[in-house]
């Protein structure tokens, strides 16, 4: 028996997946139904006119947060894409991105069960990889569910042959990358701090980024700050208007995901856990 090399702990991965599954299923279902609902709303011309009128009456910043000037009657893809950047959908993603790593790493430490896991044939790095895999894979799976919601919604409510689903797929994949990058930052926080601190830091990071993204769209004098926010790298008009993938934006999001995850791994493996 090779005692110094530990095989990958699939039992731990399975155990954590099963623990997260009910929350994932609930969030996925909400996002899925939301997309179908958006399709139902956009399909009805009269309702969409009322919604757009309502948006015009509200402060401009709200319209900006939902898609800005792209939101016009007749611009069906932009109107369907409301479902991709609606604050409720963002909140659901945030819940998963923040909740999963902090439940799997610092919460297990605080409950005293991480000591049991690490006293078996599981290295600290392997435990971290399990949490990272579940976070990133779970995020991408949620994004796929969101896209499937759009696919089903557009087949239930006929939008005619002009509506192409490919840009929605691109949007979903890039959105998944954004969500995974946020998951990477949550992992970094979870690897470095106690649960409550990790949760608050990640939420603060997200909220700050979100509002900065909205404000930079709305107030042109601070537009130069836009590249600072993570949301800048999911450029809706570019995704829908250009056929090529926005490689530069994808690279930035991948970079954030990789750097934060690796940094978290290094900190996690070097720090003494508060067992």
């Amino acid at each position, binding site marked *: 028996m090779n005692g*110094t090399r530990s095989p990958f702990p699939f039992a731990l991965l399975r*155990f954590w997946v099963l623990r997260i599954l009910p929350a994932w299923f609930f969030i996925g279902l909400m996002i899925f139904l939301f997309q179908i609902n958006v399709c139902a709303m956009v399909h009805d011309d009269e309702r969409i006119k009322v919604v757009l009128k309502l948006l015009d009456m509200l402060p401009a910043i709200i319209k900006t947060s939902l898609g800005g000037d792209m939101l016009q009657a007749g611009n069906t893809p932009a109107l369907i894409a409301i479902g991709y950047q609606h604050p409720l959908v963002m909140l659901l993603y945030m819940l998963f991105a923040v909740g999963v790593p902090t439940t799997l790493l610092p919460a297990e430490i605080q409950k005293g069960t991480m000591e*049991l896991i690490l*006293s078996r044939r*599981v290295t600290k790095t392997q435990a971290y990889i399990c949490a990272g895999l579940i976070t990133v894979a779970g995020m991408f799976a949620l994004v796929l569910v969101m896209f499937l919601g759009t696919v089903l919604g557009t087949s239930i409510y006929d939008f005619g042959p002009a509506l192409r689903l490919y840009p929605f797929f691109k949007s979903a994949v890039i959105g998944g990358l954004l969500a995974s990058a946020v998951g990477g930052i949550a992992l970094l926080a979870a690897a470095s701090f106690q649960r409550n601190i990790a949760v608050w830091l990640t939420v603060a990071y997200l909220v700050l980024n979100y509002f900065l993204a909205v404000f930079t769209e709305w107030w042109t004098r601070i537009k130069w700050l836009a590249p600072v926010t993570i949301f800048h790298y999911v450029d809706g008009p570019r995704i829908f208007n250009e056929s090529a993938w926005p490689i530069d934006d994808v690279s930035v999001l991948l970079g954030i995901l990789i750097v934060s995850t690796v940094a978290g791994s290094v900190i996690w493996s070097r720090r003494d856990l508060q067992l």
Partner: protein
Amino acid sequence: MNTIECKALTKRYGKARGIEDLSFGIEKGEIFGYLGPNGSGKTTTIRCLMGLLAPTSGQCRILGAPVVPGKATYHARIGYLPGDFRIWPQYTAGQSLRLMAALGDGDNAKKRRNQLADRLDLNLDRRLGTLSKGNRQKVGVIYALQHRPDLLILDEPTIGLDPLISQVVLDLIREASESGATVMLSSHDLAEVAAVCRHAAILREGRLVELAPVSQIVRQGERRLKVWFVKGAQVPALPADRLAGVRVISQDSDTLHVAYQGTAQAVLKWIASFPVDRIATPQTSLQEAFMQYYEKEADR
């Protein structure tokens, strides 16, 4: 080759004390007592041995391999019971134990798990959240033993257990040792250490203050002398200036109970000048030796 080997092991938490310059070894098949009051550094030592904490300096080897923090060195061959055993309350004992076995090489632990549950009188189908503290501790004991480890590291294994089940746990420890396993038994219950261990280390404020056979630790303590004087005779006052190292433990109308260090010659010589009815030399228990040890260290 020792199963556990620590050399100049030191762990500091910032400015706070952890353990300081610990060196000891535990032979294969031995049951080794690791004694000390709360906060003396027992758990810190164990966590360093398990690779759960990175030592500030020094090194330890387990089963011949150096312990690398976070690397699960030989953990499949180690049975570990933490001092504060906590486990997922929403699962049954059986589910949790199956998971923990699957995280090592203990996939075939089912038979042993059921045997241990029978001996400890534990229902594995009950949810852990509904179990009493004692029953949760039984789950911890099964968790440490179910995969027949070569090395057992047990931190307060009988805490919260009733005397009958504590006895069963001590029997299980003896049986594990007889079948070749090495046991490190951390405890502040000295009776349990005396019952199963041949050697013990005593820890105080993070430092090793004794490492010796248990019998020697008992011998090193103060010795006792109880004297019954003839009825009606007055019990004499102890001349502290002439009998250094002798102290009165208790005194009543016709008996005097004293503790002394070294030989009994001076005490006996003094007593001989009084009308003595009889003399007894009560055995010093490990508990008393241990307490004396701490008093002695505290006086330094």
